[in-house]
């Protein structure tokens, strides 16, 4: 009953979307506002309809309707309520519905804005949103239907189908298989929704970009309208990535936060191009340059969002995130090819109207440094893309190796994969270069900047930065990577702090306010700028955590008898005891007690655990962690002798500075909020008015 209701609402959404697309195209082409309004109403209807669909699935999940295939796959009787609800995005069919629901919500919210000045965009924004939505709906209806039921045919076969096959009987099970234990974590409530919100929100700026290309209104209006949407999309995506890292650190038990897993990378790729986009639109707004580039970036970001969803959901790659193999791969590929092709076609069609209004003349000007920053983000993206795609293509590219023998070492025709060392080695120098830019770019000027002016601006913070390498010498740290990384981090920090200080001081003198009030007002007045600087500080703090793990992490493992100790750096653990007990929700838990000593002094006890999920026969390792701002001491119970409980094997990690990764993440989010928060600011900025006036003058009007 409920399943039929949800399915009916899904079909109806599909038809409404189809109508909305047709109506919007007709209204847009023939300039018929009535049809556009009708399409907008269709758009607004999709969200309540999909809400019915999503609530139906949640109802079935919560009440354990195991006759539904999806429910049986992702829930079981022993799962708590919150996990049953979040199981909506615990499997492929449900997560596609969740995607569509979020997409419909975002697109509806956009159509509710005031359109007075941008009415010509409206039909095309609706078309792009609804086409995207319809693609996902068609996957749900035709390929991955979450409402399919199990049936038993007279021959004894069990089949899954939406409608009862002839002569079959329904098959109702008493219990389901349950969610993958790795996903049974409070992180499940927030990490996937944030990532998905980030994904779908990036559809909005793309929709406006396409609307601008179709209507020919190719000034920077589309960028101004979508600036905040893009920032929110970026905020959600960043938050999703950071939360994913935290979740991995807490449960995956390798002592790290990021494994260069193809699925992690595919979520980071739209973030990389989106970050490049956020920076380069500023050049278009301020200087009227890089218009083609911005269009390409947003198209790329949109298709990477679709590609990311595809990689996570198709089973093409094996990883912790991937669900089972399915037939949706070719459909995703087709859709990506189609949208990319059409977008590029439109861009070429409007190529001439997107000419730059100014020329880049100076290598050290702000816009040139922004351009380099963009190239670096794109380079990291290319490194990642190559790492994900090359293993899939490695056999086919053997032909290149045969044709050009000097490239045969790479294109050998063997099936090859690349692991974390590849990404670290290729991206390391790029990250360092980005940090260097982050240090000098805020002090360079728009338009004209020379090494002399830049030098004058930067010498004070650069001098203070020298403290960092001196400190490293005093501390006896020898790693070259640490020297470079920490010195660059110091440079960014001091430059940014100097920028805050200089501006606050100027305001303090001019307005006779105290320094804190000046800083507050300053940030309020130019939120994009100071929000951006706050984000930079966040990035620097995060980089401390990353360097802590990448450069300074140490680990060891051993089997200990009760009372024995294992030493790692200044820490030691002593194995005390181990208990094994079953839990009410179907786990067999082994929990060890270890005492932690630092420099010989007892500091705390930790309880690393291993939970064995009986129904899915999967173990899960939960670390015992002592966490401080200086370092984390991370203990894993990996093995034990079940009978005597005399010996147990532990793996221990010492992770210096890792908490700064999470603290930096919070600062980063705060900075994005400062930049993205709505305000009453006038949209036309003075320099923009001046530039338009000048342009008008030039054409002789």
């Amino acid at each position: 009953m409920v399943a039929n209701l949800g399915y009916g609402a899904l079909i109806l959404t599909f038809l409404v979307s189809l109508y909305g697309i047709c109506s919007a195209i007709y209204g847009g082409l023939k300039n018929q506002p009535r049809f556009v309004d009708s399409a907008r109403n269709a758009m607004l209807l999709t969200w309540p309809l999909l809400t019915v669909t999503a609530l139906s699935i949640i109802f079935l999940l919560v009440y354990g309707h195991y006759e539904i295939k999806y429910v049986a796959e992702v829930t079981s009787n022993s799962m708590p309520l919150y996990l049953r609800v979040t199981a909506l995005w615990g499997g492929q069919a449900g997560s596609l519905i969740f995607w569509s629901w979020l997409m419909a919500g975002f697109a509806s919210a956009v159509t509710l804005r005031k359109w007075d000045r941008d009415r010509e965009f409206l039909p095309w924004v609706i078309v792009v949103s609804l086409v995207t939505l319809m693609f996902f709906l068609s996957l749900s209806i035709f390929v991955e239907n979450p409402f399919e039921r199990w049936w038993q045919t007279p021959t004894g076969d069990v089949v899954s189908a939406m409608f009862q096959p002839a002569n079959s009987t329904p098959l109702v099970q008493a219990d389901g298989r349950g969610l993958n234990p790795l996903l049974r974590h409070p992180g499940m409530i927030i990490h996937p929704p944030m990532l998905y919100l980030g994904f779908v929100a990036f559809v909005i700026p793309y929709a406006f970009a396409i609307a601008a290309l179709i209507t020919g209104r190719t000034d920077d209006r589309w960028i101004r309208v979508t600036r905040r949407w893009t920032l929110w999309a970026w905020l959600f995506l960043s938050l999703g990535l950071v939360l994913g890292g935290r979740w991995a650190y807490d449960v995956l038990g390798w002592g790290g936060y990021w494994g260069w897993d193809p699925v992690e990378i595919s979520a980071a790729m739209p973030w990389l191009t989106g970050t490049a986009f956020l920076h380069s639109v500023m050049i278009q707004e301020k200087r009227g340059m890089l218009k083609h580039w911005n269009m390409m970036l947003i198209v790329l970001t949109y298709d990477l969002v679709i590609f990311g969803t595809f990689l996570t959901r198709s089973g093409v790659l094996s990883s912790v995130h991937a669900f089972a193999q399915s037939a949706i791969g070719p459909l995703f590929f087709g859709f990506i090819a189609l949208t990319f092709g059409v977008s590029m076609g439109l861009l070429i069609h409007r190529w001439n109207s997107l000419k730059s209004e100014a020329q880049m003349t100076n290598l050290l000007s702000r816009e040139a440094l922004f351009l380099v920053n963009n190239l670096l983000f794109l380079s990291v993206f290319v490194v990642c893309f190559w790492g994900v795609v090359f293993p899939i293509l490695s056999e086919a590219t053997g032909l290149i190796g045969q044709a050009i023998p000097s490239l045969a070492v790479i294109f050998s025709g063997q099936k090859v994969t690349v692991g974390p060392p590849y990404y670290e080695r290729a991206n390391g120098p790029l990250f360092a270069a980005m940090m260097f830019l982050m240090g000098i770019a805020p002090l360079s000027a728009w338009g004209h900047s020379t090494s002399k002016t830049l030098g004058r601006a930067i010498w004070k913070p650069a001098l203070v930065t020298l403290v960092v390498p001196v400190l490293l010498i005093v501390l006896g740290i020898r790693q070259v990577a640490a020297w470079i990384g920490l010195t660059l981090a110091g440079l960014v920090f001091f430059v940014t702090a100097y920028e805050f200080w200089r501006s606050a001081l100027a305001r303090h003198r001019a307005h006779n306010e105290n320094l804190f009030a000046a800083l507050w007002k300053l940030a309020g007045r130019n939120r994009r700028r100071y929000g951006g600087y706050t984000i930079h500080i966040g990035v620097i703090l995060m980089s401390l955590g990353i360097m802590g793990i990448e450069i300074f992490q140490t680990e060891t493992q051993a089997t200990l008898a009760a009372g024995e100790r294992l030493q790692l750096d200044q820490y030691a653990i002593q194995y005390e005891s181990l208990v094994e007990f079953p839990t009410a929700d179907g786990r067999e838990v082994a929990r060890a007690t270890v005492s932690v000593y630092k420099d010989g002094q007892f500091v705390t006890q930790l309880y690393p655990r291993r939970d064995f999920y009986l129904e899915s026969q999967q173990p899960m390792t939960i670390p015992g962690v002592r966490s401080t701002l200086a370092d984390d001491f991370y203990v894993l119970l990996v093995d034990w002798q079940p009978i005597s409980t005399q010996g147990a094997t532990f793996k221990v990690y010492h992770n210096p500075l890792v908490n700064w990764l999470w603290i930096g993440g919070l600062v980063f989010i705060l900075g994005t909020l400062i930049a993205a928060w709505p305000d009453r600011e006038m949209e036309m900025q003075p320099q923009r008015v001046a530039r338009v006036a000048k342009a008008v003058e030039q054409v002789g009007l």
Partner: protein
Amino acid sequence: MRPKFIIGGLLILAAVVYLIFSSTQVNAEFFLTIDELVAKNANMTGKNVRVSGAVLGDTIQYDAQTLTLKFTVVNVPADNKEIEAQGGLAAVLHEAVSDPDRQRLEVVYKGVKPDLLKNEAQAIMTGQLGQDGLFYADELLLKCPTKYEEAVPEQSDQTQ
């Protein structure tokens, strides 16, 4: 003024291409079957290899004190379609361990013995082939076919 931008752009491009190609070359892991690995022995010694095989339960030796694990794996096809054609992973693994004529490989792994390491499990190992013909695994992943197969529900709970 333009040329310096073009030169700058080309420099960045060259640096990125160099980084990608050299990193790929240094860190590439070759996917091989045990047959291929043994056949190419000389070529592959010391290179990063990812190889998979069916575990022979009787050969598993584990020393909990030194955390040294030794076992032997038997050649299985690497291609998913081939595995499907031969009746699925479970059947392929079962057949492999029962066939004494198949190519075998001895594996040495430093670390904790995984729970899933048992007879007829599929071991996926990353490591290097040593001069002594033993495979030194840095990373060991295990798959047990029964747990990962798309399960069709048991028919005992049926109503009506």
